[in-house]
């Protein structure tokens, strides 16, 4: 018996010891704590924090919490416990972002952005800033202003394998421009028994992204926004046409088998190893392909347009952003650090070491050739976070999962359009 008690005591003592030993030591200089989820940027952040401390004497503590799923839960939990750090990122769409602001967790950065006749604001890509901006009269009821600082930029578009293009008898410098040309290539791919396009379409947001590009191309931005506002139903012929493109691509042999249950990392691995002709992926892929197959020859292209009425648009602009905690004691220091972090030199360092596109316009010279191809299309980018309205998540899910059903030939585009509209009506009927 005595053994148990002795053991229990030892255990308790150890616990107390561990608990106390790890209490953080207090210092008089402020320490800025930053929570983030960006595993790949951790070494670069640590180095930048070291430089900042050498320069100003202020310690910056980057705390990494990966994967992003767990990170976003942590941020939400910390918001409830009012224990958010000085600087943090919110991994969420605009509606949730606005909730964080309403709950008083996010500092309005507009005065800092506009100080010095807008020096900070003007150094950053407007498209990247727009993601964190609320315009006058926005639907979320947020005081207009900028609430976050972008630290990098990205774009999601199509890539093609130049070697496989040659094998198909195509000019590797001339990717298809129209959907018709695209479909013709599909026939060749089928004949040669190759694999067409790979993408992470098991993670449905990438389907959503692809479909939205074509929605903008076929019906224009205003009509898409009107649909979200509920003025136009999803059963509109233009929407059915968008859905129909997926059926056409599937029939033409343009989609790799298994694309509907493919996670993006698998898609990247297939494309990097030359097993697929096309990929639909974000600018981060440059780094991924470089690691898996440095010799891969590929090009960047816009999705081939299906209509001449409106320009083709891709998702982009939104990279990763940081917010300042409105309740933090070190607000001023935190803002100053973010200003330093988005300065030309630091942005160039980040771009160079992590192969991400910088948020600072003046740092572009440090970017690799292929990444520059992504930048070139930056003018044609949009992002749901800048539309000013948000579609109901249930509707987005029905739309994206519906596209999966079309690809596996379970349902027709017309059926899906009707189903999506039904869910839209249900969500609209709910009192919120």
């Amino acid at each position, binding site marked *: 018996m005595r053994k148990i008690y002795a053991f229990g005591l030892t255990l308790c003592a150890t616990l107390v010891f561990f608990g106390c030993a790890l209490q953080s030591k207090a210092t008089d200089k402020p320490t800025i704590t930053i929570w983030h989820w960006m595993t790949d940027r951790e070494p670069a952040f640590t180095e930048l924090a070291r430089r900042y401390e050498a320069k100003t004497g202020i310690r910056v503590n980057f705390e990494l919490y990966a994967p992003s799923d767990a990170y*976003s*839960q942590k941020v939400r939990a910390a918001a409830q416990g009012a224990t958010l750090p000085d600087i943090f990122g919110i991994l969420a769409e605009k509606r949730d972002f606005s909730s964080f602001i309403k709950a008083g967790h996010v500092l309005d950065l507009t005065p800092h952005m506009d100080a010095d006749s807008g020096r900070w604001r003007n150094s950053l890509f407007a498209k990247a800033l727009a993601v964190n901006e609320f315009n006058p009269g926005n639907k979320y009821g947020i005081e207009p202003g900028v609430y976050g600082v972008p630290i990098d930029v990205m774009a999601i578009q199509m890539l093609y394998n130049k070697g496989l293009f040659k094998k198909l008898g195509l000019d590797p410098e001339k990717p298809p421009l129209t959907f018709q040309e695209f479909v013709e290539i599909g026939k060749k791919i089928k004949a040669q028994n190759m694999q067409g396009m790979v993408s992470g379409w098991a993670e*449905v947001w990438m389907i959503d992204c692809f479909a939205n590009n074509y929605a903008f191309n076929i019906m224009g931005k205003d009509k898409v926004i009107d649909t979200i506002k509920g003025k136009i139903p999803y059963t509109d012929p233009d929407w059915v046409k968008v859905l129909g493109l997926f059926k056409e691509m599937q029939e033409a042999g343009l989609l790799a*088998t*298994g694309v509907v249950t493919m996670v993006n990392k698998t898609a990247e691995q297939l494309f990097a190893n030359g097993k697929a002709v096309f990929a639909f992926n974000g600018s981060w892929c440059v780094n991924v392909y470089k690691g898996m197959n440095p010799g891969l020859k590929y090009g960047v292209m816009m999705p081939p347009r299906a209509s001449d009425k409106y320009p083709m648009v891709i998702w982009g602009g939104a990279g990763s952003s940081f917010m300042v905690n409105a309740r933090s004691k070190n607000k001023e220091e935190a803002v100053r650090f973010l200003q330093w972090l988005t300065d030309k030199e630091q942005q160039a360092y980040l771009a160079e070491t992590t192969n991400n596109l910088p948020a600072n316009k003046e740092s572009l010279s440090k970017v690799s050739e292929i990444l520059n191809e992504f930048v070139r299309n930056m003018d044609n980018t949009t992002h749901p976070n800048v539309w000013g309205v948000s579609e109901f998540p249930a509707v987005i*899910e029905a739309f994206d999962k*519906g596209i999966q059903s079309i690809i*596996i030939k379970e349902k027709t585009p017309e059926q899906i359009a009707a189903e999506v509209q039904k869910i839209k009506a*249900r969500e609209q009927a709910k009192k919120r």
Partner: protein
Amino acid sequence: MKFKSTLENYLFVLPAVLIFSIFYIIPFLWVFQLGMYEWDGIMPTKTFVGLGNFKEIFFQDKIWWQSMFNAGYITFIALTFQNILAFLLALACDREIKLKNFYRLIFFIPPVLSEVVVGLVWQWILDGNYGLLNGWLVHLGFPQFAHNWLSDPQTALTTVAIVHSWKGFGWGFLIFLAGLQTIPRELYEAARVDGANAWQSFKKITIPLMIPVTVLVMILTILGTMQAFVLIIAMTGGGPAYHTEVPVLRILASMRGSSRFGYACAQGLSFGLILMVISFIQYKFSSRARKI
């Protein structure tokens, strides 16, 4: 004296009850309360909707019920295929057999392996274009069976269920083995002296004595399989469409995707309630079986 004895009995369960009350009951009541609100998980204000969330789950949310059906199907495969396999292997390893220590070690590898590895390996085996399984099928002269196992709605769910069973049978194996080991050897000796053959002593000794352990394994299988999701994310992400969607994925989707925290809580509670009913029916049935 009586009082002191009762007090002593309570002392046995006191530590468990204490930890349980603080770390389970309090959060549980909180979740129960949240289940009656429409709340995005962030805002300081919540909208009270009473039993509205529960009503929506039970009468409107068709996808939720499809996900329940899918989980039920996977559980059915686990209860039959996985547990029979686990029991047979445990029986085999309970005998005096060559290499039994080796097998006992090997069968526990799948539960130990990370879902990341399991997902990657099985994707490679099942891939529609470059997969090993299709390669073997073609090689053995059955090219007509070769197809994309995970993205074909006909086979996706069954494939997921079989991989899940494979990952999980090690636990059943381990508990069955522990159960078989506690059966006193003398009983078998006595039966042999009485002239019983192997089959008879299996039927008269092993089976009756293993019923409680079997019930235990079955309940743990139901709970483990109904709540499975990590492997499913790694293999199909719930797709194609909703063909491999399971309840926990739906709960996570409500929480993160749709930011309906209250609804997610209500889904979790409804799910738990259903599991509880199933498990207790099973428990009652088997305790009756034990008495016969």
